[in-house]
């Protein structure tokens, strides 16, 4: 029996720690792969400490967790004391039930319910933005409170209620009796509650996802939004550091406890002394954390410098990793040098156009600059969500190629400045796929490669692959058109390995999948990281998607001139080239594509793919780019998408 339970415990521990061990190992991987180990290196740790945005997200996560856990511990402990004294049965039952609600409700409902309320109230008061650090703090306090109360309440019930009474009879004021007698008795419950609240807040993703505001991105949200490029071992490095910090804290905690136990065994008097000492240590720790928390909050809310809130796709700007230019930081420095004033750029990310639109249109957030794709720009213009630009502040607009002016979404060039453009192509692993099969969209429907094919996990792009294949209009409002595309996607479903966005990197690089349609720029990122037995190739099918992503200023903008200065900066040669080199997307900026150094670095193959020779970009673009669809059609597509997904 003894050995059996030891073996069983071993198996369970292996199950619990297997992914953590893997994460530890791959954080030291030389290559970018998360599944093929190629040698030891500390590169990812170096990368991590260069990634200002991620470190900022770590800081935000800590600020939030410290503030939320402290406030909920104080309020929760007070509430527990009150509930414990409550003699009215019905009142008590009501409070118990209410306390249980956030624990019984799934996170997604708690998140949605708070989001709906914040947005509604925000609208009512005409606030430019209803979600912010504060709404997130409120949400975190709300879901932490019940855990604190449920930890403290039992300790209060176990306590001899005559103790505080005796103290008061002996002349203590109630307050003094509470702090001198009750608090030490219930301290273990308070500490456990605090730790639980801190843990829950630190790890929460779902509730934060629905209540996060602009300029305040926590680590879980940042990881979720890293969809344009893959989760790199950088994140594993971060997880490894977190792991060891926690381990050290736990060991320290255990040592202190053990020492106290050992000493207290010696004499009773010493035990008493020890008891009061651990108590003091506990109070000291909490006091220390409290002080740190206050400083954090002061630092956080005390910044009165100029702020610019930028909202962009995940990993869609040169951010200082891989020895690239940290664009945001460079802008901040340049601005201070030029204008003699400090500016702080709050940079947040989104995972899709729809995601960004949902947040902006609900009035939940307010940004000064967004970078959506063409069809989304058309939609936002339709709904008066964008402001006309003052081109006097953007002289560098002169670099923008004629080809990219006057496109359908902004025919008079009033609202937008193109950021990147591109074409969707098909990539395949030449070690699996016959060269002869690699033509047109048919490759994605080729039964020979069943189980090796990837499809977009986003309705518009997925439907478009079927529509291009069938030569249907991708911007049709005719239901029959979309129904036919759905039939095509259903026929493809048994062949599909996975519906992906960011997972594509990992899957194509490692050879897990062999065929996928994706953005040309990202193909090169994958080639750079492909495993030894993988040989990725790329081609354009006849009909395919052409897109432009452009910088524009939403109507909720708080500082338009600053946003325009930022746009102008992004267009100036040095940052524009650094940016184009980093993100690998084709650039409509002549200062970039006419730069010899940049073109040389790219190499012939990349030039051929990124800047394909075409008779007229405008003509192809007008024919094959996504247009904005009306709500009725969008809703219909969403319904069809669900149908595909229940299959």
């Amino acid at each position, binding site marked *: 029996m003894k050995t059996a*339970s030891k073996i*069983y415990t071993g198996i369970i521990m292996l199950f*619990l720690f297997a*992914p*953590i061990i*893997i994460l530890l190992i791959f954080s030291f991987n030389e290559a970018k792969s*998360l*599944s093929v180990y190629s040698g030891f290196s500390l590169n990812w740790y170096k990368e991590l400490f260069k990634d200002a945005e991620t470190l900022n997200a770590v800081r935000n996560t800590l600020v939030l967790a410290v503030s939320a856990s402290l406030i909920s511990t104080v*309020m929760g402990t007070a*509430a527990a004391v*009150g*509930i414990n004294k*409550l003699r009215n049965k019905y009142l008590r039952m009501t*409070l118990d039930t*209410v306390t249980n*609600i956030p624990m*019984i409700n*799934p996170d*997604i*409902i708690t998140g*949605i*319910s*708070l989001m*709906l*309320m914040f947005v*509604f109230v925000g609208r009512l008061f005409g606030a430019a933005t209803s979600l912010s650090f504060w709404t997130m703090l*409120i949400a975190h*306090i*709300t879901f932490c*409170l019940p855990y604190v109360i449920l930890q403290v309440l039992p300790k209060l019930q176990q306590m001899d209620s005559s103790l505080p009474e005796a103290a008061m009879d002996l002349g203590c004021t*109630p307050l003094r009796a509470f702090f001198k007698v009750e608090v030490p008795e219930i301290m273990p419950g308070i500490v456990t509650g605090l730790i639980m609240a801190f*843990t829950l807040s*630190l*790890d929460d*993703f779902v509730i934060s996802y629905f209540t996060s505001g602009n300029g305040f991105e926590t680590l*879980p949200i940042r*990881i979720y939004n890293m969809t344009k490029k893959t989760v790199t071992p950088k994140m594993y490095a971060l997880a490894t550091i977190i*792991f060891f910090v*926690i*381990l050290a804290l736990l060991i320290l905690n*255990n040592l202190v406890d053990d020492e106290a136990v050992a000493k207290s065994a010696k004499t009773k008097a010493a035990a008493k002394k020890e008891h009061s000492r651990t108590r003091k240590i506990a109070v000291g720790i909490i006091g220390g954390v409290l002080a740190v928390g206050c400083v954090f909050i002061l630092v956080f809310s005390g910044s009165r410098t100029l702020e610019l809130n930028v909202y962009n796709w995940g990993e869609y700007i040169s951010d200082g990793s891989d020895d690239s230019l940290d664009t945001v930081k460079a802008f901040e420095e340049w601005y201070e040098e030029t204008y003699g004033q400090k500016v702080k750029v709050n940079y947040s990310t989104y995972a*899709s156009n729809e995601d960004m*639109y949902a947040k902006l*249109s609900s009035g939940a957030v307010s940004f000064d600059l967004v970078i959506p794709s063409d069809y989304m720009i058309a939609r936002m213009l339709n709904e008066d969500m964008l402001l006309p630009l003052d081109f006097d502040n953007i002289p560098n607009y002169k670099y923008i190629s004629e080809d990219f002016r006057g496109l359908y979404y902004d025919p008079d060039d009033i609202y937008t400045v193109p950021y990147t453009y591109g074409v969707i192509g098909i990539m395949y692993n030449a070690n699996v796929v016959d060269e002869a099969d690699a033509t047109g969209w048919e490759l994605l429907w080729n039964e020979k490669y069943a189980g090796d094919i990837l499809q977009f*996990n986003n309705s518009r792009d997925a439907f478009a692959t079927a529509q291009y294949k069938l030569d249907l209009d991708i911007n049709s409002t005719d239901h029959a058109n979309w129904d036919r595309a759905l039939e095509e996607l*259903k026929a493809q479903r048994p062949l599909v*390995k*996975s519906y*992906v966005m960011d*997972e594509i990197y*990992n899957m194509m690089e490692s*050879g*897990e999948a062999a065929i996928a349609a994706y953005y040309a720029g990202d193909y090169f990122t994958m080639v750079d990281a492909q495993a030894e037995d993988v040989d990725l190739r790329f081609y354009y099918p006849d009909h395919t998607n052409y897109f432009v992503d452009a910088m524009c200023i939403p109507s909720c903008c708080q500082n338009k001139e600053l946003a325009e200065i930022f746009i102008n900066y992004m267009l100036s040669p040095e940052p524009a080239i650094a940016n184009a080199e980093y993100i690998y997307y084709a650039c409509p900026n002549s200062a970039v594509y006419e730069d010899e150094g940049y073109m040389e670095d790219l190499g012939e193959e990349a030039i051929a793919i990124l800047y394909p020779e075409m008779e007229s970009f405008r003509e192809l673009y007008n024919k094959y780019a996504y247009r904005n669809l009306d709500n009725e059609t969008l809703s219909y597509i*969403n*319904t069809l998408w*669900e*149908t595909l*997904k*229940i*299959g």
Partner: protein
Amino acid sequence: MRNKHTSRGSLVQRLTLAPYSVWASFFIIVPLIFVAYYAFTDSEFNFTFENITRFFTATSSVTENGVDKEVHTYLVIFGRSLKLAVISTIICLIMGYPIAYIISRASARAQKIMITLIMIPMWMNFLIRTYAWMTILQDTGILNGILESLGLRPVHIIGTEAAVVIGMVYDYFPYMILPIYSVMAKMDIRLIEAARDLGCNSVGVLRRVIWPLSLPGVISGINMVLIPSISTFYISQKLGNGMFYLIGDAIEGQYIANNLHFAAAIAFILMVILLVCMALLQRATSRKTAV
């Protein structure tokens, strides 16, 4: 003297309860009212039952074994979420119950170490943990690498319901162990000894003494695993390869599609169903423990 204390007490009571009561009404009760409000209104905030009826009546055609048939979209999605969540909960219980018992019978020091070990994964970021499972389970992943080097046939797990269940079990496993353990640790060992002395065998002790006494822990463990797993959307996206929707995906999808009212309706229905389930579970067990 007594009276003086109680009057002081009630002032303290009011002062301590007031912040929480205000907080709870504004940030727990009112938001739920908003869910209901959105669920029963259209985009112009006019009253409607349409969102609710859509959940129960929307159909789509699927091909199963070469036969086309009409199914209720959201009922199928909900059914699948429920099925996977229940399976995960049962596996957590079967795996977690023995380990909780083993820990509760270990020495005080060993107990502390093992509980700490079980809690450590909870501090690692949930998204990164799930991502790590993806690299283990995928076809060219670490698991198949190990199987291959042992000369065994590779297995295909990623993108199946099994992968989603593994993810759910892994992520919520500690939530099953901890409450069962804390009940068992407080259990009076003399009761077990007494039962043994009175001629009960091991199975009898487990069935008649340990299990009934641990029931409150089991119930709270089931709560803590079932609820998050029924509503997850990240696990199904990553480990399910995006091959199928769970109810959490449906809510998130409607939110992204900017269809807040229907998202609220799904959330509202999910909430009502869960509350009813939990109430029934509570009632069934409280009757059982009373007997």
